[in-house]
């Protein structure tokens, strides 16, 4: 049991094992952006309404603004930076689908949209339209892009292979 102001904890970030002192009073969002420099995860409303800060925690989309940094102990976290396959310059199929469908306008909501989409496709390989809408209900886009975004999710579902999803599957608990 740790009770330090900056407890040292173990977690996995984008597939890499970490052991770090994390600021106890910080949210995961702030920790990712201000300590680790991972600014792809966006800071929108900070109260769980907009989904711009969505990351995967043990394979499930969560609002990183509502997770305390010390709560990620032993968890596997994936951010948008980890989505692109390592080494290469290629994009992940979900990212390609968003570009293909013109589902990106200002781009602020896009990292969260992509992470939520990956979370959906991990659980449901062929979501129907209503499942897609429900899955993305927690991600707001203020540029009016929902139609293209739903199209992108459908295209992503058609394009992805198990290989594209495997990295995100680790540490997923059974319900």
């Amino acid at each position, binding site marked *: *049991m*740790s*009770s*330090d*102001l900056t*407890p040292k*904890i173990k977690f996995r970030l984008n597939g890499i094992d970490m052991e770090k002192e994390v*600021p*106890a*009073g*910080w*949210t995961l969002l702030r920790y990712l952006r201000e300590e680790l420099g991972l600014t792809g995860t966006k800071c929108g409303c*900070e*109260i*769980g*309404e907009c*989904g711009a800060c*969505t990351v995967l*925690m043990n394979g*499930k*989309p*969560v*609002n990183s*603004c*509502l*997770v*305390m940094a*010390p*709560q990620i*102990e*032993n968890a596997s976290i994936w951010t948008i930076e980890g989505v692109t396959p390592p080494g290469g310059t290629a994009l992940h199929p979900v990212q390609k689908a968003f570009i293909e469908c013109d589902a990106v306008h200002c781009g602020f909501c896009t990292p969260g949209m992509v992470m*939520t989409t990956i*979370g*959906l496709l991990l659980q449901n390989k062929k979501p129907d339209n209503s499942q897609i809408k*429900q*899955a993305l*209900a*927690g*991600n707001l886009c203020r540029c009016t892009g929902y139609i293209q975004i739903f199209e992108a999710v459908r295209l992503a579902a058609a394009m992805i292979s198990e290989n594209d999803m495997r990295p995100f599957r680790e540490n997923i608990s059974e*319900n």
Partner: protein
Amino acid sequence: MNAVETLNPTNLAQALKAKANKNVVAVAGGTDLLVRLHDRITQPWPKLLILENVKELHKITVTKTAITIGPSMTFSEIENSAILRKKALQLVTAAASAGSVQIRNRATIGGNIANGSPAGDTIPPLYVLEAILELSSAKGKRTVPIEKFFTGPGKTVLKPTELITAIKIPNRSNHGFFMRLATRKALAISKVSVAVNIIMNKSKVESAKIALGAVAPTVIRATLTEEYLRGKEINQAIIDEAARIVQDEARPIDDIRSLAIYRKEMVGVLLKRGLESVTTNG
């Protein structure tokens, strides 16, 4: 928002020991608590007790007579639980309709109860399922029926040194529904919610339990409507009258989310829709 101390126990005994210090605030999913703390960024934060790694609180156990839900079970896990889908559909429907995917992946049933909001979506189902809460401290434990747990908006009988350690419901089949009304389907707090658990004897109502959310200082039972329905053969006239009676049992207020007059009307509408669906589905 700096200089916060967190405690991160790995078992229940450690957690209860830490909670013996009554200035410690327990955080489960954090989806209510962090929103509240965010709004008081300039004030000192309490010492936070993280329950993430206390595995004893994060499971469902089933016996012949009872289903025991660990307070750290998330809304998503409740939504996907095979046993709860079979035996507590009201609770599953409520868990599935709250927040967003991101919120449901973090929000816990214990947190929803402890938060004490009259609009907490899992609470009306737990009323009609006759849930019993187990409250534990380092010194021992006690049980409290869920209806005796809440004393006002955000107020409960949970002592500062206690944690909710189990939520027990009877292991039996039941019939009923949960319905809610909010500004949008996702990510909106309920303006009105209705949970019903109904036992039919052939075409007659043997008993009905009705709980109303967000229309009184706590979730309440609609006992006059329950009494009215007992022994009745359900038909449209009976449903309409029940919907009229239940409106008078609601004691709503005007607030940021809705108006009292609208809430009263909608309690009746939700009950009516639900009873119609129960009776047409057999």
